[in-house]
């Protein structure tokens, strides 16, 4: 009995440093954010208890609620693009490198390179290309006698261009995870398939795809977090207003405008910002829970 207790104490000893640090830097701030969401606070004067009024404002105000839900909708739209466009393309790219297409080492380097460039720089590149007045794209089109566009000022093109830039920037990260996973697949499995007369398509669809599902799960989890917390790219591309008709307005931009941008009553409002964060915590928790449920099917025992 004493030995068992001693063993338990040892576990606690090992767990406690990590647990304490994690609690201080992760759990406590989250609890504080939730606590703050029940107050009015401009960061300067005393906090005043607000009850549920911050949430009421967020969900019922004629100006704020449509902004917020529109932004949530954009986040979810972005999420779907990540799941169904970006991730499959990442896998396909990894597959091309796996089958060693010509010059694959050079292309692999080129595909991965944008990932190490910060989003700020990527946005700057995008501005230098797509800005209708100072960007290079319109200048080329003008020289070629072709019609020019307003690109991120065009509500029909802005989101597509945004996804294109995200794809360009982030293809490398998921691709490397998929590629490593593909390299991990035992060669003898594929050789056995070849001996049994499997075609390349059958090998791809029946062997490589199923055996890549675990890495797919990790990639999707990372991408989901990224999609729901996107801020820097749209902020630099179209500003804190989210662009024309809020086409690139995401929750973090709404959060930024109302918390720091003096849009609400002309002052910073940390309480209201905390309410937005709390709601998003709930949204992310729900999305993550559903996603985990689905992704748990991707797991297999080696």
């Amino acid at each position: 009995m004493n030995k068992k207790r001693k063993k338990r104490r040892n576990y606690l000893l090992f767990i406690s440093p990590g647990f304490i640090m994690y609690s201080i830097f992760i759990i406590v701030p989250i609890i504080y954010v939730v606590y703050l969401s029940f107050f009015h606070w401009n960061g300067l004067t005393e906090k005043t208890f607000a009850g549920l009024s911050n949430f009421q404002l967020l969900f019922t105000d004629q100006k704020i609620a449509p902004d917020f839900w529109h932004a949530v909708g954009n986040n979810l739209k972005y999420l779907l693009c990540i799941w169904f466009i970006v991730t499959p393309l990442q896998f396909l790219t990894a597959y091309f490198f796996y089958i060693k297409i010509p010059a694959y080492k050079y292309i692999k380097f080129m595909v991965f390179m944008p990932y190490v460039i910060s989003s700020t720089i990527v946005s700057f590149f995008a501005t230098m290309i797509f800005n209708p007045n100072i960007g290079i794209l319109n200048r080329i089109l003008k020289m070629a006698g072709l019609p020019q566009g307003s690109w991120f000022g065009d509500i029909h093109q802005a989101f597509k261009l945004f996804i294109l830039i995200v794809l360009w920037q982030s293809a490398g990260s998921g691709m490397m995870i998929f590629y490593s996973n593909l390299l991990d697949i035992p060669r003898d499995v594929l050789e056995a398939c070849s001996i049994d007369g499997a075609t390349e398509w059958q090998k791809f669809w029946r062997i490589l795809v199923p055996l890549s599902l675990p890495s797919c799960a990790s990639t999707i989890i990372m991408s989901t977090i990224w999609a729901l917390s996107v801020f820097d790219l749209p902020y630099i591309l179209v500003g804190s207003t989210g662009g024309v008709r809020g086409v690139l307005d995401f929750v973090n931009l709404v959060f930024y405008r109302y918390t720091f941008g003096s849009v609400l009553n002309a002052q910073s409002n940390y309480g209201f910002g905390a309410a937005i964060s709390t709601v998003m915590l709930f949204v992310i928790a729900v999305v993550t829970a559903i996603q985990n449920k689905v992704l748990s099917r991707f797991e297999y025992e080696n």
Partner: protein
Amino acid sequence: MKRKSAGILLCVAMTTALAGCGSSQAPSASSGAAASSAQTETSSAAVSESAEATGTTKTTETAEAAGNDLSGSLTIWEHNTSFETSLQGVIDGFKKKYPNIDVEYEFKDGDQYYNLLNIAVQSGDAPDIFWTNGTATNNMSELVKADALLPLTDVVDTSELPENCLAIGTLDGTLYSVPWSCVDTRACYYNKDIFEKEGFAIPKTFSEFEELLQKEKDAGYIPISLDSGSSWDLLFAYEPVLSAYDSAYTEGLADYSVKATDQPARDCMNEMLSWRDKGYFGDNFLGVTDGDAMVLTFTNGDAAMCIAGSWDANTFTDNNPNLKLGAFQIPDKDGKTGMVGTNANGFSVFKNSANLDAAKAFIQYCATTEAQQAWVDGQGAVSGNPNVKSGSEIAGEIANCDTTYTSWQSVLANHAKEGENASTLFENDMTKVFTGEMTTDDFFDEIAKVMQ
């Protein structure tokens, strides 16, 4: 289960990131030396400095002594890099008088300025000296409520500043910041080379101005460089156009005999929207979402004109030193020209500054004619003080007009109902009007609801 935990941990981390969002690095510069105090002597020192500046050769030894005795270090925050030349000029003058005071300055550029300032104040680590927009926005009054600003009425000798300049730094009869005696105005800048090459002339009436826009467009230029992403950039174009579109109405804004949301204000906005549709802001105006692109479009010669603030003149010439820059005020239908202007606010002192004596010396120096001249020179600004000369040739062109008008935005700031803030509505929604997300009437109606 492990993956589930990992997923939840990651989402938790995202929320934490939201909680901690909001800090930025800004360039900083410093000049100076070191050590402490002598408040009462400081004022006399500064006054005698200003006497020198105005041409009086009277230099008091006590002032020099006070300057040499006082030491410490100061940190100053400004909100826009376009003020660097002016600030450096003021610091250089201050350093000559107070060689033992270290002065460091930082620019917290962008819309994070007040947020960073609030955080710094709250943490007790605010800069000793910092800019606010005075009574033009409610940030200074929030800082006063938080007891963060040193009342300056009994600290600063303001005898060298015109009485009307002080209003922007005064709340409930107490001075909280020392304004700059220059006028922050707006102007229609133009590229002289383009005008000469194409034979364009400065318009004499509003209809000539509109004809000029069409001529510029026909010649292949963007008539007015403007961006659709910043309400402030749109405002600085809207106000001078409004003053020309209906000068009688704009004059009425001064005593609030007309409302900021009356029909002429709406008609003018619609007129500008028709300019947008005619491509006078560029065929792809909606894709120009930032002020830098607006400036570059003008300075690289793609646009013939740019309606912007007087403080932007330096930015234009810094961007393209070869640009032959001209400026005029848009005339009304009868040819009358006016300048929409607001007084420029300056610095306040952090009440809990660890270097309060040095900060008081600096703020006193700011109130001298010498410092005011340095600021106006650095800006190339239009002077609002009879003792201070306008800063540049372009300032002379900007100020070459028949009258001055009250800013439409300052009416929003000063005549909103108690507890309401109309400026916020303009800041949030003006871009929506120009991008077609909101109608002009909806925009003005929502403002009208919160105005007196």
